[in-house]
């Protein structure tokens, strides 16, 4: 059988005729395999985008991520199995966002097979896919929708042809339904029976026409997740659940300052003598302990006596980091000169925030002299494979990188910190390891959304906004997971005025826009300071940028004596945004009378080929703010959220609703409760009783998410799309409830609401009194 991955690039598919007509392959072999070039969607015509002041409107991050597919001509395949199921290995990472479900739905749709008969697995690192195996920017469905449909449609076409021969009928007279093909005389054949008959001995090119949207029976209908049963029975496997022979639990003892490094271990023999401990080795990031159980790893880490070299932020607090960053703030561009114009200005600060997921950084690594195998939740497995191979001194093809489902990502799994660390440890020990970061490591030394400021200046003449300038300044956002390389590879595809920008600026320009008629609109970004471990967090710049500019929109509305909703409505330049705004205003009863100390807030967002709006109600009365919950932050309570989202084509409205519900809780956390505090060179937060992500006592009792009817034939992104509007709406509501526009986020950053846990040793001891707290 011909290996689909070894097909020469020129022989690959290119779509030609008709909007729904595409070319793909039937791969030669003994069972039916339909294949398509994953890059087939990319449309080179989009490269001639005219220069305009707000490029994100015309060419956004998703176009860039989609274009990244262009030079990578490689195949993805749908295989029909003899048991009547179809299988597909998705070259993306499932981290909770639901792409295995939406992908199964897309295949089920074209193939006319029940969704539960489609098995979607995660493909291991496929270096030939280059940048087309990166899960980010909520781009999965946008970039894979059409190619996957084409592969499934080719499989169905083959099945029909095989059935026509078997049933002595013609393709045109056959009806396929739920995995069974029926001839006019009532005779039937199942996909399972046809799987081998529909196989082709040789690889051949096939053209196929996709279903028209009007015929959709699965896409666009609410579906439950394909992994839900495994999740509720505890059988869904995450990296630390994998049983790999001899890969014993392993943890790392880390420095008391951020990114500090070990110089010497003073008591290695003592630690090796502890019960269960098998190995202790020093690596660049700390000292690794391997043991029979993770509990014994914790004991070993706590017992280690290590001499450390301070990290680069030693002695610093977040106030120092802010002062340092402010030096990098660029002068604001001059507003238009008009003696009658008034200037409205506001400066906002957004503190460091942790993107630590419930499932901490982890990886299994088995490094041998002649090859290595890695298992981890990875959104950029190809880059991980390259980097690990280089570190281990192995050829890239000797490193197998398996992608495991992960318990959340929020941006963190774009990086492969744990996979790299596990590889180093396994090599140093000469044994397989199952590395897991302690929660304290994950919170303190894991990645954070960078500290940033947003300065906004607007110029008003009468009731007209003449100009709107926003200067965003941030601690450097790390794009070294390959998004940066992706951009380098695609610079030629960018509109000409973007070609010279740096990575961060490019991302900024491709994602940010102010969708209002505000005269001269200018948004800029400056980044500085590489001492921190950073990354995106359920979106990159948008939540902070949008929060700052929507607060400013409310300030402008107030300045001209307009209602925040009416003011937005009048000045919005985009009908889809206006439609979602109207929707939340209507359903959420904008303007209803509220008691003093409580208020509504309304905000919009536009990104990911979609539009969203959020209306929240907040209760900031003292009796609510000061309510007590043990070891927790209470504060103002968001009591009700009405959210509307238009993603173009919603593949799975139930999944989209779930993602928006999650995003709402993220937006609330950003506004009200969660940040990291840098003190004396390290982050203080070591667990969830220090880092206050939204909890049940903060979550809104009333939440309504409205998925707008499809406005497009193309799906938009979902995983992160709801954070920005929610964050902004909560901030606006808080300002209206209290009469003061908050300037720092989260609003409680300056109250330290916990006692810091131990730095030496770096992880806390597990309690022993669990049986005193049963309920």
């Amino acid at each position: 059988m011909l290996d689909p991955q070894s097909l020469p690039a020129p022989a690959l598919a290119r779509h030609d005729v008709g909007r729904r007509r595409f070319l793909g392959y039937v791969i030669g072999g003994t069972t039916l395999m339909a294949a398509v070039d994953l890059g087939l969607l990319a449309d080179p015509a989009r490269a001639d985008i005219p220069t305009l002041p707000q490029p994100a409107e015309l060419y956004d991050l998703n176009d860039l991520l989609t274009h990244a597919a262009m030079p990578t001509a490689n195949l993805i395949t749908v295989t029909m199995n003899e048991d009547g199921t179809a299988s597909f290995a998705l070259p993306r990472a499932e981290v909770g966002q639901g792409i295995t479900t939406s992908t199964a739905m897309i295949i089920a749709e074209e193939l006319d097979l029940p969704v539960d008969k489609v098995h979607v697995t995660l493909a291991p690192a496929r270096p030939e896919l280059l940048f087309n195996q990166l899960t980010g920017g909520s781009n999965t469905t946008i970039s894979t929708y059409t190619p996957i449909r084409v592969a499934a449609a080719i499989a169905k076409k083959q099945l029909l042809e095989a059935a026509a021969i078997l049933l002595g009928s013609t393709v045109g007279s056959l009806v396929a339904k739920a995995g069974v093909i029926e001839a006019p005389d009532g005779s039937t054949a199942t996909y399972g029976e046809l799987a081998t008959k529909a196989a082709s001995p040789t690889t051949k090119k096939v053209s196929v026409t996709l279903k028209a949207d009007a015929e959709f029976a699965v896409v666009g209908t609410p579906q439950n997740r394909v992994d839900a049963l495994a999740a509720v029975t505890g059988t869904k496997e995450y990296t630390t659940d994998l049983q790999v022979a001899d890969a014993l639990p392993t943890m790392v003892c880390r420095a008391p300052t951020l990114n500090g490094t070990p110089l010497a271990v003073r008591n290695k023999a003592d630690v090796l003598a502890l019960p269960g401990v098998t190995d202790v080795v020093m690596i660049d990031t700390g000292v690794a302990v391997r043991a029979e159980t993770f509990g014994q790893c914790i004991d070993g880490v706590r017992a280690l006596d290590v001499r450390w070299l301070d990290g680069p932020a030693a002695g610093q607090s977040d106030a120092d980091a802010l002062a340092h960053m402010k030096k990098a703030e660029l002068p604001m561009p001059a507003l238009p000169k008009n003696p009658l114009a008034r200037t409205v200005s506001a400066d906002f600060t957004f503190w460091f925030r942790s993107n630590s997921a419930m499932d901490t950084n982890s990886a299994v690594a088995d490094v041998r002299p002649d090859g290595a195998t890695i298992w981890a939740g990875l959104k950029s497995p190809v880059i991980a494979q390259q980097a690990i191979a280089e570190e281990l001194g192995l050829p890239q093809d000797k490193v197998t990188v398996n992608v495991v489902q992960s318990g959340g990502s929020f941006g963190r799994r774009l990086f492969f910190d744990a996979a790299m660390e596990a590889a180093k440890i396994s090599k140093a020990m000469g044994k397989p390891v199952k590395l897991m970061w302690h929660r304290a490591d994950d919170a303190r030394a894991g990645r954070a959304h960078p500290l940033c400021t947003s300065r906004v200046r607007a110029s008003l003449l009468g009731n007209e906004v003449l100009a709107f300038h926003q200067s965003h300044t941030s601690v450097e956002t790390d794009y070294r997971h390959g998004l940066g390389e992706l951009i380098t590879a695609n610079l030629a595809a960018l509109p000409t005025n973007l070609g010279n920008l740096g990575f961060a600026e490019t991302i900024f320009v491709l994602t940010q826009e102010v969708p209002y008629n505000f005269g001269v609109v200018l948004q800029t970004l400056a980044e500085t300071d590489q001492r921190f471990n950073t990354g995106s967090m359920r979106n990159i710049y948008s939540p902070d940028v949008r929060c700052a500019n929507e607060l400013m929109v409310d300030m402008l509305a107030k300045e001209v004596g307009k209602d925040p909703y009416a003011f937005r409505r009048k000045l919005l330049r985009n009908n889809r945004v206006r439609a979602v705004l109207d929707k939340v205003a209507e359903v959420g009863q904008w303007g209803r009378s509220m008691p003093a100390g409580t208020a509504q807030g309304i905000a919009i967002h536009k990104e990911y080929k979609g539009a969203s709006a959020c209306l929240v109600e907040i209760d900031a009365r003292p009796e609510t703010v000061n309510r007590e919950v043990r070891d927790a932050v209470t504060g103002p309570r968001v009591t009700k959220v009405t959210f509307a989202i238009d993603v173009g084509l919603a593949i799975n409205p139930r999944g989209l609703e779930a993602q928006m519900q999650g995003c709402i809780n993220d937006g609330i956390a950003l506004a009200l409760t969660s940040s990291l505090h840098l003190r004396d060179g390290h982050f203080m937060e070591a667990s969830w009783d220090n880092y206050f992500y939204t909890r049940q006592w903060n979550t809104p009792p009333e939440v309504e998410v409205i998925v707008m009817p499809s406005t497009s034939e193309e799906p938009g992104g979902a995983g992160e799309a709801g954070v920005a509007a929610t964050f902004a709406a909560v901030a606006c509501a808080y300002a209206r409830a209290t009469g003061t526009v908050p300037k720092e986020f989260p609003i409680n950053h300056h109250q330290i609401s916990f006692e810091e846990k131990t730095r030496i040793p770096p992880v806390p001891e597990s309690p022993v009194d669990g049986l005193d707290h049963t309920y």
Partner: protein
Amino acid sequence: MPEQTFILNGESVTVEVEDDVRLLWVLRDLLGVTGPKYGCGINVCKACTSHINGRAFNPCSVPVGAVKETDEVTTIEGLPATAAEDQRGEHGLHPMQEAWLERDVAQCGYCQPGQIMAAVAVVNRARREDRAVTDADLDGIRNICRCGTYTRIREAIRAGEQQM
């Protein structure tokens, strides 16, 4: 090495390990029962929530030596069997698990075994107090979900309570 014996999901198990190793690691690393998840190791996140003698507890904070031979430990894997057969739903699961499926609660799913075990205990506690689950009960659930599935968790607990 000391022998530890207790009842796990209806069956007596014996394992050789020091007394002070927390039960979570005995379950996960030695017995291969991986439904209870690690999220903090200090009784904060509640991802490891399981039941002991019918009450919710957090095995990350219980030394295995403190668990008696007669103690019944139930993890998510053993939850279906705790419901009477006629109470189990279409997937043969505990009504709370079925409610979770019906509402499609899980996103990444990592916190969900702990959420479900906590939910069952919250309903049972209310029953012992001869009352229905209140908003205050829901507000008081300490299990973290970093994917933010709280809205559907609340809905599923209300629905599961009806079927329990």
